[in-house]
């Protein structure tokens, strides 16, 4: 069973195909979680939640070719919601469990993403970490390719300012 067929069957409600599909994209989903969240525990929780949401909604997916990207987007939306929640917790002055077990390796990435708004974060992540083509992003967002390109430029410009501010560009 190739991945397209697997996707089609999962959309049609085949439980086994759904499980196989989640196995297939597990790595990409976990890495996405690691890019946004700071520790393993939160990432695993995010994977569970993504599986749950995907199972509930998979019948609504129209194009099986975009299934992986669809899953990644569910994951990113969840992670971004979690980050917002954590921020609120910190502002409330309550302990933020997630941040006590930070994963320092990815701190730089998390900081860079934090300089962008949520839409821009997703755009950068899909384009540079998941190699999703601009054409496909445009199709998913139902906007012209040109719009995606100009958004991408604007986002890279913001990132440039971020990296320059950190004085890190020289090390690359």
């Amino acid at each position, binding site marked *: 069973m190739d991945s397209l067929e697997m996707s089609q069957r999962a959309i049609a409600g085949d439980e086994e195909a759904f499980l196989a599909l*989640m196995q297939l994209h597990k790595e990409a989903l976990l890495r996405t979680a690691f890019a946004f969240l700071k520790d393993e525990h939160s990432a695993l929780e995010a994977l569970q939640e993504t599986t749950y949401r995907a199972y509930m909604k998979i019948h609504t997916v129209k194009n099986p070719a975009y299934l992986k990207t669809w899953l990644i987007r569910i994951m990113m939306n969840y992670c971004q919601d979690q980050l917002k929640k954590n921020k609120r917790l910190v502002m409330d002055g309550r302990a933020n469990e997630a941040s006590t077990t930070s994963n320092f390796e990815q701190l730089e990435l998390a900081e860079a993403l934090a300089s962008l708004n949520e839409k821009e974060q997703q755009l950068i992540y899909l384009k540079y970490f998941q190699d999703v083509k601009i054409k496909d992003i445009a199709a998913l967002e139902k906007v012209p390719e040109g719009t995606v390109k100009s958004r991408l430029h604007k986002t890279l410009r913001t990132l*440039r300012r971020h990296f320059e501010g950190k004085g890190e560009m020289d090390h690359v």
Partner: protein
Amino acid sequence: MYDREEEKLASLRQRLDTETLPSEQADAAIFQGMERAKREKRLTRVRKKRTLWTLAAAAVLILAFATSIRVSPAFANAVAVIPGLEKFVELIEQDKGLSGIFKNDYYQAIGASEQQGNHTLTIDGLILDESGMNVYYTIESSESLEDIQVKNARLKNTKEIPPYSMSLGGPHDGKSPNRYTDHIEFYFEDPMVFDDLAFGFELSATVSGEEVLFSVPFTVPEDIKPSLVFALDEVAEIEGQKIIIEEVIIHPLRAEINISLDPTNSMKILQFEDMRLEDENGNVWGSMLNGFTSTGNLSEGSISYLLQSNYFEQPGELYLRFNTVQALPVEEAFLVIDTEKGELISGPKDARFSMEKADQKEAIFALSGIEDEAHRYGLTTGIEDAEGKRFYPSSESMSTPDNEIQWTVEFGTTDYTNPLRLELFAYPNRIKGDVKVELKNPRE
């Protein structure tokens, strides 16, 4: 133009890609997420069906209140000594099946309990048959349980229990703040026989806003009694409409009447108002139950009606009988409405019926001039939009201002294409006859 930024991102990606992943835990997370979703999907399905019952149950409850409740003191005392059952005396006395169960000691005392923090749940006892399980339980706590809300309950067995329906979570009775008694009726949609009588009972509730989850293992001490099946396949006719009585199954907890309809009928049968089990002298042995009254959907052609059981008490002769059936000509048995134009395009050809108001989110229908009638049924079941998308109303409520019944149907979504087609659940247009089918006891 942004080469350096792109390079930087590539190096960040490289670092992310070399991160070791907790592969086994990831599999567990996927599994758990999927189980949770499956469980919830099952529940939503059950909940959808339950809205139908709730409507029918409302109709039946009204009848129940109309009849005065007389409980024989001897029986009341007998039941009241069983822990946790005091508050059910009336309910049990009113239900012939349940009183038969208690008189014949088919109720099984359990006494298994589990403590969670300050709260202890004890399963006082249960009744199990092939159609379901009633679990009677008590929660005691050092905290007040007055605001307790039972959220969900589940039965576990080595055998997979297919989707079932249940009724649960009565309000706190206000008698003792630290004690809550309730019973849960699990109803299996297909008869179940368990080889392994070890079960797990899970119950989640919130107390003062905090979630508590109990999980109590227990074993049913005695084998369950087999149900009696009367295979009938008899075709009954009322005003030319053919109704096929497929079988009657008498379980200790309830009698199940399985009915299907002839697809060539010119009228659509909506409700059986007076389906009952009678003896040779016309005494009613089993009428509609409180709570669940039916499962399945008449618009899909077949349905199970649930009546009180006569399992433990057999009269000389037993008949299934009904006289009054709600029905409408097939082409009038649904409403077609346009919520944009606020227009009722078609529906029952009845001058008393109208659509008062409609917008994207809800529609209000009214039936006027019904002072003599006690029609206490919901109006609609499922909805289909112009493109064939099916959904259920998120809620339907009924009010009865002067000589009028009003139903407010909330769609729960605005994502549909007009016109909408609403299946009718009940309608006060009746056909009459006298259907009487003898049930010959297979035990004789």
